[in-house]
């Protein structure tokens, strides 16, 4: 089983979080293993098994059972790293050298896409789908690192 954590925290201005991966539906179609989505109430459901609002204990138990996981840059990548369960993080404008963990697989399309000031609110940054790697690259990495 693979966990997906598709969404980063909602922005206060209602715009799309620039860290949210835009190609989840295409990516999910390419994954040939059972998928569990985790997140919170109000987020778009992408697979049949969507576990919402889990406690940290519940989330931890689920993470311990999974083969691996795929996430945008959010709380989830830190949480799994802390449990020594490593997975794939899909980056765009935030810097994996600052906010990532080398033991995860950090897929960043181009460092030129990183915002200059990494420490401001994300409300100031527009979402841009072109700044993410394609689903094919994610699948390639998934198969290579977590066969």
């Amino acid at each position: 089983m693979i966990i997906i954590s598709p969404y980063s925290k909602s922005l206060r201005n209602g715009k799309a979080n620039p860290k949210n991966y835009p190609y989840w539906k295409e990516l999910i179609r390419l994954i040939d293993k059972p998928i569990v989505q985790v997140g919170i109430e109000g987020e778009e459901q992408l697979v049949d098994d969507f576990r919402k609002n889990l406690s940290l204990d519940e989330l931890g138990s689920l993470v311990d059972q999974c083969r691996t996981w795929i996430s945008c840059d959010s709380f989830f990548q830190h949480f799994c790293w802390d449990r020594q369960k490593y997975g794939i993080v899909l980056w765009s404008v935030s810097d994996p050298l600052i906010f990532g963990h080398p033991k995860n697989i950090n897929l960043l399309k181009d460092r030129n896409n990183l915002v200059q000031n990494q420490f401001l609110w994300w409300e100031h940054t527009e979402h841009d789908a072109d700044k993410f790697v394609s689903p094919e690259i994610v699948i390639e990495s998934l198969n290579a690192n977590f066969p």
Partner: protein
Amino acid sequence: MASVLCSVATRGRYNSTLPIVINAIANQTKLPDKLIIFDDNDAPEDMRNNFIYQHLFSILQHKGIKWEWIYAPKKGQHHIHQMANTMGYDWVWRVDDDAIPEPNVLETLYSYSYDEVGAIGGAILTLPFNPDTSKCTGKIEDIDREPNIQWAEIKETKEVEHLHCSFLYRAGIHDYNLGLSRVAHREETLFTYGLHQKGYKLLVVPDATTWHLKNPQGGIRSENNEQLYKHDELIFRNTLAYKDKKIVVLNVGMGDHIVFKRVMPHITNAEIFTCYPEIIPGRPIAEAQALFGDVDQWSIYKKMAEWKWTDSLENAYKKLYL
């Protein structure tokens, strides 16, 4: 050679002590790289139209001292000092707008700017007041029991834990407490004690006298609301009450709390304030705000921005707290 900014916060003294102070700065035996006047007047004026100031500005220019006149945000001098603190200079020499330094003051203070030193102050004399400071320790625990050591002539170099009024300090190391009210009561004590707590030496040194005219008119603290003084005094007392603790304020997201878990075991005697006690146990952030006024001084994101940080978040936490 390290860069030195001279910072003067002023209010209500256009036509009394401020021009004397500017003149004294222009006549230093070691000149600062730049002088900034932070004008906090309720009705600011353009002093380039005043003939005395015209001449003073000409003298500064002739001596190669860059100068700038900034209209300050009227939030109190601690906001002004914090601006100066973060302007990218190595050292800031803060001079009150009614404190007249002898010509050798900056040169003397700067001569003690060793690597381990965070701030240096000289005598700040307000004649005829001349207390006996021979037994003063300059320690924070004695602040209610002794006159300030800088209020009388300083006979020999001495390490202290807080400084007063006007001094030279290492910039960008410690923040001014922006939670103080606009009277900024105790601001320099809190600031210099913070430098001391960060492991830097504070020195009082001889032969660096500043004459404090204590102009009863104007002044950056010209405010008589007793409640504001009480508010600031409470922050000061709380800071002293927790002086032996390492204050940790995690006013950040869940992921940041998780990363901090790796740093926490290395911090001894921590008093932790947290947004997610299920990840990092501790007291609510609101309590930190009530105790210390301003929690931005512990904002890891603000710090990383200031430091132009490119390393990991975990290492940023280590820099802030270890």
